[in-house]
């Protein structure tokens, strides 16, 4: 709410600068968006009186004006405004003035005629169209006739007031009024507010009930509904003081009736609505739910299609107003209105909120209905508005209020314990200190003199229900800055990461240690991307009911597709070497209410893992480099089961000749390989290698314990073997035979060369291994090794038709 500092000062003897007040409000009550004056950034804007005017000889619309600015001689100003008139007092920007948007006004010639300033419209000195009165849309603003030429315009227009723009949390609806602000500020500065209510004088003999009736069926939807009628009004502009109050509060002055309703809304937080009595379809008011599909034209001219849970004010069953939201076309107060029906009500907050939200008709009124209305001031506000309309627009106020429903203004009693207060806040307040806080808040407070306080909360604080709400009142008035800062007294038990959390963290560290940067991608993606690259495919991803963007409609079922989007972003921005991993959730619908959330680990590399360097040859990433990373990672896990890499042609997103399923014993735990070139093309990325692992399986899998193995003191003996085999013989087939036939002393089999090409027969390849033999308990002899090695070579020859080279 835009709170006027000068308005507050009407009711409070404030002795603080506006900025200090704002800071205090922020620390004690509600947040502050901004503190400003309409005059900020403006200068040298004075009252000028147009004393003479002639047409500009070189223009069909410019005028040459002589303007009295309170000095001996008038200044000459060329002005293009259509409404410039001799005798009017206007906003005059002098030579050197600053107007809106930091524009500087300088003396100069306009079409050959000297001009020493500028005559300004409100918009030209920073008023937005939302607050500038409509009357002056076409040109200059006319200051009051008694304005003194040469005076700064700021005080005439209220622009020297400071506005404290508060950001009111949903619970503090009471702070959406001057009344609420005054009470709260009075509490924190310990001031006595002298808030003025204006009583109504009913100066018409006719009873209001002769003119209108109200029938409210549903007092839940409309807890309070009241009407007054003012006859014989003359609709005109409001006095300037009232207009200033409104535009400083961000509301555009319209006319003396509507302005009064808005003024009272600001003062009490009570929205009011004024109807043109004679334009109504009858005189019997009611409030009902709309009919599904019912049409209603709001006063902005838009035809709304209503829904069954919308709430409308009706007259003779015809809708005349969207309750709490916006009035209807044709029944609002206009220049020709003479009799006003004035409505003050409380509507159900949820209904108003839903209606305003659905129709996108948020207003000062709907905002207040949504956050609640003080039942104690409904009638006060209605009376004050009626009186003000009578005073400002003439007319007579008829006798009595017609009431359709009325929510009693009840205060609440809450019992507090001093010990508990101190226990919750960590303070050591005395009973007297707490009593004093409630005195300042103007809450009733009775004590038993020991520990118990009975607090009576007035109706104006409808946000307070339970003791905890009062702890907050105590804490904020006592001052959060005065609270001590301690740490909880902790006993015994220890915290720490769980095994699962440590596993995930170690996985991340492994990936980083091997050169992959951690990525965080979006979990929400397209249906198509969500389905790609699944380890163990599920048919359909979980979809959002009402997505915001077509890029984010379903939850991912693999991490790889997100990483490929990341790679595409990098490649598109000229980064060719990208090595990323991501650890996070995938969401697999498996028939339950919610999908199964699995932790996965995935990696993707394109270009080179290590950047180009003067010292080494380029080494574009390939299957084996990424496999080395995965192997090392899996090795670090100490899995008890047997890991195998099984060639796989079934994954449509993957290169059929360069993809392997990763198996832990018989369980599929992930896959690795090259992204299918066609898929890579669709992502607009070059050759990319990826892997994805299901960490749930890996976390659950049995692990081997770390056990010390003594290092053999005896020397080892190695034998190299090179064999020529058919292309389709795999390393795994060869090593399986070597290991099977290697004998008790074979410690290690190391592949050191793979060759196929020019020097070999077609369809053949050469594999070369180093076999290491060692006896842990004795020195091996050459004969022992030769015997063992011969068995291996023979088995390879027999079983694989290998040619030993």
């Amino acid at each position, binding site marked *: 709410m835009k709170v006027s500092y000068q308005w507050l000062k009407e009711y409070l003897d404030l002795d603080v600068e506006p900025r200090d007040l704002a800071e205090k409000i922020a620390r004690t009550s509600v947040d502050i968006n901004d503190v400003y004056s309409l005059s900020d950034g403006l200068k040298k804007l004075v009252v000028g009186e147009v004393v003479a005017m002639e047409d500009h000889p070189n223009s069909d619309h410019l005028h040459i004006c002589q303007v009295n600015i309170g000095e001996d001689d008038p200044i000459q100003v060329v002005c293009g405004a259509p409404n410039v008139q001799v005798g009017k007092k206007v906003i005059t920007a002098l030579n050197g003035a600053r107007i809106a948007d930091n524009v500087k006004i300088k003396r100069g010639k306009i079409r050959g005629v000297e001009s020493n300033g500028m005559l300004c419209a409100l918009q030209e000195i920073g008023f937005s169209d939302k607050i500038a009165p409509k009357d002056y849309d076409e040109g200059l603003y006319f200051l009051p006739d008694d304005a003194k030429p040469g005076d700064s315009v700021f005080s005439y227009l209220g622009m020297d007031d400071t506005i404290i723009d508060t950001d009111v949390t949903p619970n503090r609806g009471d702070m959406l009024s001057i009344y609420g602000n005054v009470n709260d500020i009075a509490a924190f500065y310990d001031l006595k507010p002298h808030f003025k209510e204006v009583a109504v004088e009913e100066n018409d003999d006719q009873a209001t009930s002769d003119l209108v009736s109200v029938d409210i069926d549903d007092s839940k939807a409309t807890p309070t509904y009241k009407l007054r009628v003012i006859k014989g009004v003359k609709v005109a502009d409001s006095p300037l003081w009232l207009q200033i109050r409104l535009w400083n509060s961000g509301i555009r002055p319209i006319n003396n009736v509507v302005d009064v309703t808005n003024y009272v809304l600001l003062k009490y937080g009570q929205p009011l609505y004024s109807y043109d009595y004679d334009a109504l379809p009858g005189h019997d008011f009611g409030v009902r739910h709309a009919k599904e599909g019912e049409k209603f034209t709001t006063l902005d001219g838009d035809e709304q299609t209503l829904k069954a849970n919308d709430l409308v004010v009706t007259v003779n069953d015809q809708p005349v107003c969207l309750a709490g939201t916006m009035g209807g076309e044709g029944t609002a107060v206009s220049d020709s209105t003479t009799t006003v029906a004035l409505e003050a009500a409380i509507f159900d907050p949820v209904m108003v909120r839903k209606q305003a939200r659905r129709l996108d008709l948020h207003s000062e009124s709907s905002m207040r209905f949504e956050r609640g209305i003080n039942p104690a001031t409904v009638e006060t506000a209605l009376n004050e508005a009626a009186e003000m309309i009578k005073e400002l627009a003439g007319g007579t106020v008829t006798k009595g209020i017609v009431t359709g429903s009325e929510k009693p203004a009840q205060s609440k009693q809450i019992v507090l314990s001093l010990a508990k207060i101190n226990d919750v806040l*960590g303070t050591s307040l005395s009973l007297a200190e707490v009593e004093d806080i409630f005195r300042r808040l103007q809450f009733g407070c009775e004590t038993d003199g020991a520990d118990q306080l009975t607090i009576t909360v007035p109706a104006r604080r409808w946000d307070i229900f339970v003791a905890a709400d009062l702890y907050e009142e105590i804490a904020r008035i006592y001052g959060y800055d005065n609270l001590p800062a301690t740490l909880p007294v902790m006993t015994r038990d220890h915290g720490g990461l769980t095994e699962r959390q440590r596993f995930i963290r170690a996985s*991340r560290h492994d990936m980083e240690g091997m050169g992959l940067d951690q990525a965080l991608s979006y979990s929400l993606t397209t249906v198509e991307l969500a389905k790609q690259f699944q380890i163990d495919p599920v048919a359909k991803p979980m979809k959002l009911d009402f997505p915001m963007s077509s890029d984010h409609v379903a939850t991912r079922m693999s991490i790889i597709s997100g990483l490929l989007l990341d790679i595409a972003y990098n490649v598109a921005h000229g980064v060719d070497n990208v090595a990323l991993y991501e650890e996070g959730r995938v969401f697999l619908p498996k028939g339950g209410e919610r999908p199964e959330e699995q932790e996965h680990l995935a990696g993707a590399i394109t270009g080179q893992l290590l950047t180009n360097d003067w010292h080494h040859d380029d080494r574009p990433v390939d299957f084996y480099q990424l496999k080395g990373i995965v192997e090392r990672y899996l090795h670090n896990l100490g899995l008890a089961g047997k890991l195998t890499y099984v060639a796989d042609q079934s994954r449509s997103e993957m290169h059929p000749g360069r993809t392997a399923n990763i198996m832990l014993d018989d369980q599929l735990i992930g896959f690795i390989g090259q992204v299918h070139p066609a898929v890579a093309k669709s992502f607009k990325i070059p050759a990319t290698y990826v892997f994805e692992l299901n960490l749930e399986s890996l976390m659950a899998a049995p692990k081997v314990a770390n056990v010390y193995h003594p290092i053999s003191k005896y020397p080892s003996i190695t034998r190299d073997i090179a064999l020529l085999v058919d292309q389709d013989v795999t390393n795994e087939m060869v090593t399986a035979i070597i290991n099977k036939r290697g004998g008790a002393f074979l410690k290690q089999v190391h592949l050191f060369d793979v060759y196929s090409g020019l020097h070999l027969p077609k369809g053949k390849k050469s594999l070369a291994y180093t076999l290491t033999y060692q006896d842990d308990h004795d020195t091996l002899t050459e004969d022992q090794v030769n015997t063992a090695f011969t068995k291996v070579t023979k088995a390879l020859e027999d079983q694989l038709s290998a040619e030993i080279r």
Partner: protein
Amino acid sequence: MDLKEKLADLRQQGLEDIENSQDLKRINEIRVKMLGKKGNLTGVLRGMRDISAEERPKVGQFANKVRDELTAAIEERHAALEQAALNEKLKAETIDVTLPGSPVAQGQPHVIQQIIDQVVDLFVSMGYEVAVGDEVEQEVYNFEKLNLPKDHPARDMQDTFYVTPSVLMRTQTSPMQARMLEKHDFAKGPLKMISPGKVYRRDTDDATHSHQFNQIEGMVVGKHITMADLKGTLKVVARSLFGDKLDVRLRPSYFPFTEPSVEADITCFNCMGKGCAICKHTGWIEVLGAGMVHPNVLKMSGVDPEEYGGFAFGLGPDRFAMLKYGVDDIRNFYQNDVRFLNQFDEKG
């Protein structure tokens, strides 16, 4: 020439040859020529048998002296030449030490992960447990059990991605408050937990909004847990993450699941409270929301609010990272441009 003269000549000649030798090959030749089995010295000594028994010891003694002298000279020269040769070799091996070193593969943790890990480690060191929840949550835990009944206006504050009327992408990590309260055995002491994770809001992505971001929820519930404890705890967080001279202030705020509710500001780490563009000239930066757990939340999770109470807070690692490093567009965190990711080398 008697034998002694021959020896003296041999010595003289030998020493000159040694002196003049320029490489290791030559010095080895000299060694063989002079001292070898068929060498000069042996040759001369063959004449010993021709001299008198009386002279023999003297000549022998002299011969030994010559041998020792030549041996020493050869060794010395050999060592000098060897040293020279080594120096030559080392000189030839000289490299440009200013050439860059070979790159090493080393990835970086994501900057947001770094913040999360720092916060988690801090709380773990204070005895908190880490509870990680589901990202697809039941509405009842995301809202109802947090004192946000249907039609609560605060639900408008956080637009939600619903999956079904009862299932949604969690909008906050706070559901873990309710889940942990339900699970915890208070007979075994207070509940102290921290819950990091991804959350989702129905927002359009721009520089300051992201439909996915991270939160860390913290909660302590036990007997005699006070708001002063909350303030002290937040001070520890602020100081460990942003610097040890910073102060914390609390301002009133509103969250349905805490009462009293506060926003916590820390001293602007950029200007140390003097006022600058980062803190919008207030000297303070809003970093998190917190409060005392609302009695309704405790009640709904089966915890007696008369006996137990505590505090909860929620902070945003994305916002922390933006503040700490001056990142001006939240989308940077999720585009994973490696030029961005690699700016945040983890220190210590």
